[in-house]
């Protein structure tokens, strides 16, 4: 098993190296000014060979010299680290929601296969998969927040709560801060979280529901399951112990493929719901021409995608030994 882990880690490192190389080459072809803007420090980039320059660039990235924002002169890495928890919080809850609902929907569809319910779940998953997320976010905000008044319009927490960002995770900070009305604050956090998380979960949810359904159908036709049914073992037991777990393990790689889409969705969702995370900052920095900030947040997001992908790969290799050969 350790072989797998080491293999995955090394391939992640290679990925990161090649991504930075590609970005470096892009920077070089664009113009040197943008590169200088990022790495304005004691490593002069001109007058050296391309390889030395790349080495310097990489050293700076590793050492955390990500340059300074051209808007407020703050170090980029510091800003990125301050913003990333908000993005993680949102994405985490969206993933949780997608997994939970996707799993239930997929299972229900399989149980009632070839009935109206199955058709309905499939159709809904198609709809969810086809909807442009930015439009979907706007519509839900208009209807659910504004027309029905069920959730707040945007932001992470009611503005009047005085919560100092310590870890950056609202749900953690609410306990670290001395807030008199803690339960109100927690309620406010969840109220603000639910709609953006739901919007972000839409696409992965649809994919998960369909994948689980397909995997379950395949597994349920296997001989050992059929014989278990024949022996009169209760359906719930079969589904839970044999089928669903296997289906989940089998679908892991497909879920892993969704990480990139999830990050893209997070950037859009944050922009729409004015969620103060890395994605919103990235788009704002792009609009105000703050190149070092754009560079820093893009690199950070790519790193995160690669790391999570590798972790998922390792996890699925551990759960599902058949996949170890990859």
């Amino acid at each position, binding site marked *: 098993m350790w072989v797998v882990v080491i293999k995955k880690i090394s391939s992640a490192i290679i990925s990161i190296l090649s991504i930075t190389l590609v970005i470096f080459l892009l920077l070089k072809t664009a113009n040197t000014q943008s590169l200088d803007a990022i790495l304005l420090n004691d490593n002069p980039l001109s007058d050296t060979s391309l390889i030395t320059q790349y080495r310097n660039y990489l050293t700076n990235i590793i050492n955390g010299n990500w340059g300074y924002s051209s808007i407020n002169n703050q170090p980029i890495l510091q*800003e990125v680290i301050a913003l990333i928890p908000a993005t993680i919080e949102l994405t985490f809850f969206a993933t949780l*929601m997608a997994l939970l609902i996707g799993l239930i929907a997929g299972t229900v569809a399989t149980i009632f296969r070839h009935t109206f319910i199955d058709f309905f779940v499939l159709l809904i998953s198609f709809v969810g998969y086809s909807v442009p997320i930015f439009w979907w976010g706007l519509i839900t905000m208009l*209807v659910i927040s504004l027309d029905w008044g069920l959730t707040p319009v*945007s932001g992470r927490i009611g503005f009047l709560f005085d919560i100092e960002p310590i870890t950056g995770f609202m749900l953690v900070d609410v306990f670290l801060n001395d807030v008199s009305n803690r339960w109100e604050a927690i309620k406010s956090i969840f109220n603000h979280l639910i709609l953006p998380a*739901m919007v972000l979960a839409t696409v992965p949810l649809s994919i998960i529901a369909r994948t689980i359904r397909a995997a379950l159908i395949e597994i349920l036709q296997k001989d050992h399951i059929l014989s278990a049914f024949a022996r009169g073992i209760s359906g719930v037991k079969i589904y839970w112990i044999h089928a669903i777990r296997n289906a989940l393990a089998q679908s892991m790689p497909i879920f892993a493929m969704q990480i990139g889409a999830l990050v893209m969705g997070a950037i859009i969702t944050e922009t729409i719901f004015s969620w103060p995370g890395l994605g919103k900052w990235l788009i704002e920095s792009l609009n105000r021409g703050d190149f070092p900030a754009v560079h820093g947040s893009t690199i950070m997001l790519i790193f995160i995608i690669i790391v999570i992908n590798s972790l998922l790969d390792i996890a699925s290799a551990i759960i599902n030994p058949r996949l170890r050969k990859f």
Partner: protein
Amino acid sequence: MNLKACSKHTLNPLMLLLLVLLVSACDNTPEQSIMRQGLVFCSEGNPDTLNPQFATSGIAFDAGGRTLFNRLVQLEPGTSTIKPSLAESWTISEDGLRYQFTLRRDVQFHTTKYFQPSRAFNANDVLFSFNRQRLQAHPYHFVSRRSYPYFDSMGLRELIIDIKKIHNYSVEFHLARPESPFLSILAMEFASIFSAEYAQRLLEEDQQELFDLFPIGTGPFVFVRHVQDSHIRFHAHPQYYKGPEKIKYLVFAITPEPSLRYARLTAGECDVMANPLPAYLNLIHKNKTLDLYQMTGLNIGYWAFNTTKPPFDDIRVRRALNHAINRQAIIHSVYLDSAEIAESPLPPSIWSHHTELPSYTYDPVIARKLLKEAGIEQLEIDIWAFNIQRPYNPDSVKMAELIKRDLEQIDIKTNIVTLEWSSFIHRVSQGQHQTALLGWTADNEDPDHFLTPLLTCDAAMTGSNRAFWCSKDFDGHLNSARKITDPNQRADLYYQAQETFKSEAPWLTIAHATQYIAARSHVKNLKQTPSGGVYFSGVYLER
């Protein structure tokens, strides 16, 4: 209606189920206890700084200048009467060169996590606040590496010869020449009083740059936190010299998107919102839970031509562009008629506004003729617009599109360049633009505060003269006007200055916009500043 119909088709029932579950688990009743004591203001942008000495935008004065600081004197809201503030009284010498102020005692600075003052406000703080801007040798002059746009463009460096501390509660200003608007200058935000003790302590700790990031003042509210692009938090100053404010917390929710700002207001997440889009005014008016405040604005929206760049150095080209634009259409579709056409840079409510200035009528034929005279066959120009809404211009991109349409009529090709607000201001003040859509809101009702920072040669040096237009005649009129105290004689000189401006046409003057803010009706005693901002001092909530 249409909207609901679409959403019904796409609403995922599973999600609805989940939503109902979660919402019923945590119902969305407003958080009563703190909602009663705090006010949320949805501002239209990020302040570029909280230090009013550096600031040029109204947002920065709302968040920094009026909220955190006091000045020696203040303007009675809505008038041009000077009232005492940190100075209790003052005397002016007969030659108009010496101003002596007696300072108020027992005015406390903010106590925060990062600074605990050991003494009350005194003359040292006045000296510090002015000398930082005035003297290059001052240890704080170059901290934060920013310029002092107001101080410099108003020529105060030359005007103020010396500031003397007579004793702890008395200071004297020596001027180089008589300056009739001097007291109203001291009421402006850039003349705010900072804590010299705080500055000294940071100097000892070698952390001067924190001075402008974590401000300390004497004003009605105390700074708590600024999260970039998200919010700024204040709480009431318990030892405020006029007595603590009724609202305990004040939060600026930074919401550049006008539709989101309106949404937050209607949803009750904001109590007050800045600059509703003209298109929303009708909705706000009809909504019984909202109040609309309006005020004839002390502002001007204009299109500046960079007169240092050809072909805009040619007066005929500038005049041609003045003739080419249909301003009535702009007023109608950009401002939805909530503005009037501007002929002078001075709005009509300012006392020396020239009512009989000649107008450049909208006439593409004359425009073409002037261009031909200037020898221009083909012209392609850039118009710079910015991406947020300002009191004098609700939608500069839309305005640019209308201008583009008009320019097509006289065969000028136009590229619209849209920039984010802070980089827009930064690059425009460096003169990188060809033409740009800009505007100005005055800080008080003295005509000098319109003309000096926007159109003089001094201002062209600092970059606040966005046309980089420099006219000896124009400057001459303004300089003589400053030395005179008789309003009639001053007004005559300002009339002449406006005439010079109009015939040289460094701008196309577009509109004087009416200024609006909207608030939920439980917000009481809310007042607008002439510059389109809000006075938070004195506001209370009634439920």
